[in-house]
């Protein structure tokens, strides 16, 4: 099926707090999508729902036509905003772990990327700087041949050179069967690589559009439109 990600009336409440409300969204394969919105708009909640780290209050979320579960976890590659790897492990051991649990993980790819970034696979994570840890996590996520990549703030707090590397890696990984969803608030840095954007605010989808339509019809960048739409 060509629809890789589909939400129907998706709602998530935490007690009385509504994180997502009636979200309807349909994303096709082979796209690089920007999930854009201010902090607290529900981006991370949506991504966690897709990973079964949260369960919906009502409505449905389907990945490749299936509800989040073991089968979807096999085809979804997730990069959380935080460092989530066991500190005491060496990079080599984590690669082994990923190889063990994910059939579509390609260790050769991971080792290649580590080498090009001069990261020693024998180093323990706890000896690395935060930036290096984040790069390792990105490498692990991108070394999987997944059908849906969910990247939560992949370029936040990263220097420009690393940012370019990350964007190039995302592009280099592109294949028509997979979709990449990038959740971020740093829009101008990633605009050029996006096909499609989803604006989200206060738990609701405010707007969806292709990037070309925005520039063509509105004559402004996505960043410009974002600032307009989310003016305080």
């Amino acid at each position, binding site marked *: 099926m060509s629809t890789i990600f589909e939400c129907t009336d998706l709602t998530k409440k935490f007690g009385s707090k509504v994180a997502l409300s009636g979200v309807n969204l349909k994303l096709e394969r082979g796209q690089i999508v920007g999930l854009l919105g201010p902090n607290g708009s529900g981006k991370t909640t949506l991504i966690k729902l897709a990973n079964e780290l949260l369960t919906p209050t009502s409505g449905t979320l389907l990945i490749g036509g299936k509800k989040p579960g073991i089968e979807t976890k*096999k085809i*979804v590659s*997730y990069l959380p905003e935080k460092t989530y790897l*066991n500190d005491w492990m060496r990079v080599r051991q984590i690669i082994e772990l990923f190889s063990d*649990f994910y059939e579509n993980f390609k260790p050769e790819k991971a080792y290649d990327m580590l080498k090009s970034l001069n990261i020693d696979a024998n180093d323990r994570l706890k000896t690395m700087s935060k930036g290096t840890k984040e790069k390792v996590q990105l490498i692990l996520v991108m070394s999987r041949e997944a059908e849906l990549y969910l990247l939560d703030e992949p370029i936040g707090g990263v220097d420009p050179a690393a940012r370019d590397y990350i964007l190039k890696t995302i592009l280099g990984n592109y294949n028509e069967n997979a979709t990449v969803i990038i959740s971020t608030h740093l829009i101008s840095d990633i605009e050029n690589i996006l096909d499609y954007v989803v604006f989200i605010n206060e738990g609701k989808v405010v707007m969806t559009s292709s990037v070309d339509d925005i520039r063509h019809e509105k004559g402004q960048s996505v960043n410009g439109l974002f600032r307009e739409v989310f003016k305080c």
Partner: protein
Amino acid sequence: MLRKLLKYELKATGRIFLPLFLALLVFAAINRFTLSLDKFDAPAIISGISMFIYIIIMVGMFAMTFIMTIQRFNKNLLSDEGYLMFTLPVKPWKHIVSKLFVSMLWMVASGIVALISILIIALKKGAFTQFTEVFATFYLQAIEQLGASVYLLSFEIILGILVSLASSILIVYASIAIGHLFNEHKMLASFGAFILLSTLAQFFILLVSLIPGIAFYTNVQISSFLDFIGLQWLLQMVMAYGIIYAALLSAAFFAVTNRIISKRLNLE
């Protein structure tokens, strides 16, 4: 998948326990040596210190089994590392089982290593043959009195220990999981849950004993202890009840834990 989880769980915990085991055995050997020095009027402080260290290690080892049980569940599943564990294509119950199994393993292993270390210190020449003699006598007597059911009984005792161990670990997991449901004061909530669950477990046995007919068994007189046929039967009943009770509790705690981490997970 379960096997893979077990592998990583063992790796993560082994790096703590194996050095501890080694240290304990080494200090047991040291103690054996320093204790023998007493013969030569060596200052008592040497054997005192080495015995002290040995005991500290022993205590630390057992404390560690408890600490690790909590920490592996809490840190690896319900904090940042949970982002990795719960996105692996593995059903949540397998996480519980792998950690339960490895916790039990280290507890049993600690017991065995502690025993070995004591033997290292205290074993005298010929003590081993003495021990085997005593054991043989005991064994023959047991067979005489209980017949072949001594094997069944031994099996039941081991099973009983294991199931009780499992339920005591699972009540901890369930308490931590319940604590996870709260936004603030998670530790306090876990503690409260632990007390609540323990109380409920006691209540449960009380309820069970209220079932008519069960009371009959609890009124068995002490004098029947001497009635050999009754003894065997009594022992079987007690063992069976103990095992069933612990098994039911384990199942309940497991179900609660599984339900929470499957449906009500909310990692920060």
